[in-house]
């Protein structure tokens, strides 16, 4: 083939594929030298002679040969680690809450954590850390920060989660029991406010439809089924974590006897409302555990 005056691909085997393969490399052996380090990554890094430090998600091997042959990111034998904990705290706060515990650790696969934290409120900066537990001792932790940002309202019992962002209205009131006592010989009454009750309650109303991320559309046709599942979920007698995109969040129970549907402009445009009453501190790991939202005991 003559292309612009050149014999393009004119030689034998010119267009043959490169005779290498992309098989997995599962072993690397070094020998015949004195080695400072050996490092492997799947990240697309540009060439550098700088000694790699630390680990990231692409790191696959990092051997420093500091009097040992460890090349992973765990400085102890697998059998000695009893569990891995996922801890979280609001940025700037002191105390960590354990939100998940991976237990037991038997094989190296058990070291891989995939956990969906449904208990973080929106619009909030959090620190997360993975902590190895060695008997009763917790190891050092390295934290990562993230600011949450959700769309709409979410209701979860720790396992299931329902959400929508259509026509969400939330009424909210703070309750503390008080009694006004009038007496005959006083112009002004007494206000008696005994006890430590101090909780939120209110009503939530929204059009509950499932959002299809692939079609980028609301599933109107399946709306009735989604709504029926939601009602079963709301009536399953388990405490709920309710959170809204603006950062409000309550650990609550559904407190109205009725879950009310109100049709708006069409049969498919249904607003469903119910009452909630706060039953605990949604930021407390103990309260979340006691109410079955998380499985990790504090």
């Amino acid at each position: 083939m003559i292309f612009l005056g050149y014999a393009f691909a004119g030689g034998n085997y010119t267009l043959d594929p490169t005779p290498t393969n992309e098989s997995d490399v599962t072993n690397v052996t070094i020998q015949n030298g004195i080695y400072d380090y050996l490092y492997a990554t799947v990240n697309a890094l540009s060439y550098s002679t700088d000694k790699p430090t630390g680990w990231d998600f692409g790191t696959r091997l990092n051997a420093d040969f500091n009097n040992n042959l460890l090349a992973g990111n765990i400085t102890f034998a697998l059998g000695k680690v009893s569990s891995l904990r996922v801890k979280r705290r609001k940025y700037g706060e002191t105390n960590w809450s354990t939100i998940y515990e991976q237990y037991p650790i038997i094989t190296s696969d058990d070291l891989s954590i995939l956990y969906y934290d449904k208990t973080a409120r929106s619009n909030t900066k959090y620190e997360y850390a993975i902590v190895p537990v060695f008997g009763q001792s917790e190891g050092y932790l390295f934290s990562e920060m993230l600011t949450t940002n959700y769309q709409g309202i979410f209701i979860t019992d720790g396992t299931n989660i329902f959400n929508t962002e259509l026509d969400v209205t939330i009424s909210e009131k703070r309750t503390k029991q008080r009694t006004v006592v009038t007496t005959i010989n006083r112009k002004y009454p007494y206000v008696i406010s005994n006890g430590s009750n101090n909780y939120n309650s209110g009503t939530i109303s929204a059009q509950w439809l499932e959002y299809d991320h692939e079609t980028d559309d609301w599933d109107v046709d399946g709306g009735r089924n989604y709504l029926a599942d939601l009602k079963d979920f709301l009536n399953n007698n388990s405490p709920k974590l309710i959170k809204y995109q603006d950062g409000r969040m309550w650990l609550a129970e559904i407190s109205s006897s009725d879950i009310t549907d109100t049709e708006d402009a069409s049969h498919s445009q249904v607003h469903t409302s119910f009452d909630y009453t706060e039953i605990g501190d949604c930021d407390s790991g103990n309260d979340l555990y006691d109410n079955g939202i998380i499985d990790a005991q504090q």
Partner: protein
Amino acid sequence: MATVYVKNIVAFDATKEQIITFGYDGNQCTKNRIIVYNSATNASVYDDTVTVQTLEHTIPANTLTNGTSYYCTITAYYTSGGIEYNVTSSPSNIWKCLATATWSINGLSEGTIIGNSYYTFMMSYSQANGETVNEFYIVLYNQSGTAYWSSDALYDISVPVTASNLPNNTVLYARAYGSTINGLQLDTGKISVTVDYTVPDLYSNAYLENDKWHGWVKVTTNVLDIEGVGVGNYSFTGDTYIDLSASGSSVEFGNNFNVNKNFIIESLFYGASTNKTIMTLSGEGLSIPITTRSGTFASGNLFFIELKDTVSGYVLYSNMINIPSLSDHIHLWVQRYGGIYNCIIKNMGA
């Protein structure tokens, strides 16, 4: 009227001397006589008189026999008005001579480091005459000698006992003591141990992903437990190097190691002579030795790296550098991207 009685005698090892003590009330005791009887036959097996004023009598080692039960009487002598009198005790309690038991805490010796906030005690016990343990206690003392932790009365040596909440960075003294059913005393003495928590490190951050549509934060980790396997005569030098220059020595990283498709492997090494395979990448259907080479070119003698896929025959050469000395550190950088390899070396100096 003087009185004398033999104080309680517990089981003891007949191969060792044993002091029998007695109580006495009367004029100064000037000498005493002990008669030891076999409790099964009532035959006298030892009769000895000593002229001492102390209220004790020593039975020499190997006088009695382990496994046999005995009792004894003590006769105390005194003088009154220049006349010697004596008074004899009632028979003592029956005791059994028993060989000394071996009694220890498994895995715990002087200087043991407890790397945790708890320790599980398991006792080790044996006794030649088949004597069984009656009751024992385990105590941890602090440095002032106060009991920091103590067990309840224990009866079964096969049941492990756990002491919890041990304070970090402290020295404690562990002691297990008790007795057998015939009163043989068991005591490990105080064993000094150090509590120094082994704190594990995990060099992996949590990888976080905000999912605004699901209202959750996805938390994942990249934790890999990889430990190389050394072969042959290898050693660590300067704390941060591994010397694999000895013939036949190597380190293989295989367990839990895996890279696929695109990757970068790099290393810093020295002391590699020419025509030596310094690294081998392998997997199923894959074997790529990486070998040091040198040659004479127009610009002189040069050093380079050969990377060869022995399955397909594909060969790649790195850039060329001047022949390094054996103390020069060579940085090796190997990349596979889209099935194409790239190999770069650089002399980083000694």
